[in-house]
């Protein structure tokens, strides 16, 4: 198999409302930044992989009218969309495009412009079809909101299940928010930047639905991310320190609209996330990583909800199950720590949904390439893991990056 490496990353600034640009123009900001970062022009790229979560913008196949802004003129283009994992799936698609030998250099583009739609309505369309089935069971529609976890969705079930199994407390959740949002303050592209935030500040925010408070939940962002991938050979000509993508793996489990719908039966507890463990194990194996705890230098788990940072830290096999809260307390996850987690600020600080999982890969790549600027971690990053989560609690995507090829 050919080596595949990241040679350029571009992100737009993420904010709640970008009303000065349209979707295509917003995405251009990330795309042009990626070309600049890679030192390439669109003419030197031979394929485009793109995706977003279209229900948020209300535009079907948005590349049909918008891609002219992204340097795609008469190029091969593949649209990959998988919900919350979309960005990760787009990154994986770009990886496979180069690894297959069919393309030498491709650009991965993922985005969301949530202010063009109604995020809650957008999210609700995830389950409307299931709700339609629920009505067949005579479920009282007024209960559905509470069942669905109100605005926070099924994450509340996942959170309480995880907290029970790990001993994680709401205090840990507060600390996760602090870790991420103070990191975000050093990332110019991040949305919620809260330098000086304290756990007490988070604990004082309103409870949405137990156990999640407003301070534990991601914002809705407008933003885009682009990443240029090429062969190892070409990457070495373009930069001294490319970020190799050693492997990617995804795993899909059963959709978990708990019970009743009959179509989501949740054989697995939403807090288990076996599919994340499976994806991580496969990705490490392909990447030649035998001992992720000691070999991985940095992690970008996809955590729009505070408990997920800890839960996915465990499911990415970076510590034993139930150990993550203690790892958090130890300070190891901090920017200067042993295994920094989300130095970018993570999804809890910035969530342009379709872009978020690509941003995890892009942030890991930037850290390896030493291009993260103010949020560059102190230690040298040799190997990093990037993750994405989505679907109805059932999709996980994992990418393993390194400063050397697989060998």
């Amino acid at each position: 198999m050919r080596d595949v490496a990241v040679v350029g990353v571009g992100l737009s600034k993420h904010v709640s409302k970008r009303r000065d640009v349209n979707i295509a123009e917003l995405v251009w900001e990330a795309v042009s930044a990626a070309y600049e970062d890679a030192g390439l022009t669109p003419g030197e790229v031979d394929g485009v992989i793109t995706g977003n979560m279209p229900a948020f913008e209300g535009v079907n196949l948005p590349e049909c009218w918008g891609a002219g802004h992204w340097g795609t003129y008469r190029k091969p283009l593949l649209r990959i969309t998988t919900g919350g994992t979309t960005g990760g799936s787009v990154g994986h698609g770009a990886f496979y495009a180069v690894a297959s030998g069919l393309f030498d250099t491709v650009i991965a583009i993922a985005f969301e412009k949530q202010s063009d739609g109604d995020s809650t309505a957008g999210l609700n369309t995830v389950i409307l079809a299931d709700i339609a089935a629920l009505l067949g069971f005579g479920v009282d529609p007024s209960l559905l909101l509470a069942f669905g976890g109100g605005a926070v969705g099924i994450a509340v079930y996942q959170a309480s299940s995880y907290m029970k199994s790990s001993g994680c407390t709401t205090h840990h959740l507060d600390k996760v928010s602090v870790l991420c949002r103070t990191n975000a303050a050093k990332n110019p592209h991040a949305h919620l930047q809260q330098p000086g935030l304290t756990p007490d500040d988070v604990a004082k925010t309103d409870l949405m639905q137990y156990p999640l408070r407003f301070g534990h939940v991601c914002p809705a962002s407008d933003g885009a991310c682009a990443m240029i991938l090429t062969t190892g050979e070409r990457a070495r000509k373009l930069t001294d320190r490319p970020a190799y993508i050693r492997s990617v793996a995804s795993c899909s489990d059963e959709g978990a609209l708990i019970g009743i719908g009959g179509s989501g039966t949740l054989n697995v507890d939403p807090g288990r996330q076996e599919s994340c463990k499976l994806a991580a194990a496969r990705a490490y194996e392909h990447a030649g990583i035998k001992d992720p705890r000691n070999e991985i230098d940095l992690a970008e788990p996809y955590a729009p909800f505070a408990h997920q940072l800890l839960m996915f830290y465990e499911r990415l096999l970076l510590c034993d199950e139930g150990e993550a809260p203690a790892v958090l307390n130890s300070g190891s996850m901090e920017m200067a720590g042993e295994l920094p987690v989300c130095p970018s600020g993570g999804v809890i600080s910035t969530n342009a949904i379709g872009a978020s999982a690509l941003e995890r890969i892009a942030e890991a790549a930037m850290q390896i390439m030493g291009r993260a600027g103010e949020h560059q971690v102190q230690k040298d990053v040799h190997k990093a893991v990037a993750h994405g989560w989505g679907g109805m609690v059932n999709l996980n995507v994992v990418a393993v990056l390194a400063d050397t090829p697989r060998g």
Partner: protein
Amino acid sequence: MEYKEETTSIQGTWPLEQWRWKHETSVLAKKFLEALKDKKIIGLKCPGCGLVYVPPKPYCRCLSIPDEWVEVKDTAVITTYTFTGSWSFGGRLEGTGAPLVIAGVMYDGSDTQTLAILDGVDPDDVAVGKRTRVKWPENPQGGINDIMHSELI
């Protein structure tokens, strides 16, 4: 050209009211709900892997079609739970008093989870792994509400 921070917004919709989703579950539900009238909870068992789906499901992850109706118990184990906060129901519960506890429960004999309301239970008393029993109404109507409420055992 004068650069504007706020430009014109064009309004549009996704007229989903025109969509008609198709579900086998609506048909399976009839049999499931009918059994509730006799205070029986039934599910479908998969011939391929033996999983029991409650409520019934038309397909299995092993690509077989669950086709055998089996009865499961009304006792269950809690797999996860939540309780409502001020923003549940879009904030409508604010100030109404006791939180509503909702648990994911797996009926004994079933391999899947469903949701149940634990009435009047203090959230501090709920825990994953605790057991519950359905609080049947005196005269079940053959609706999902018949098993919507459970109590801690």
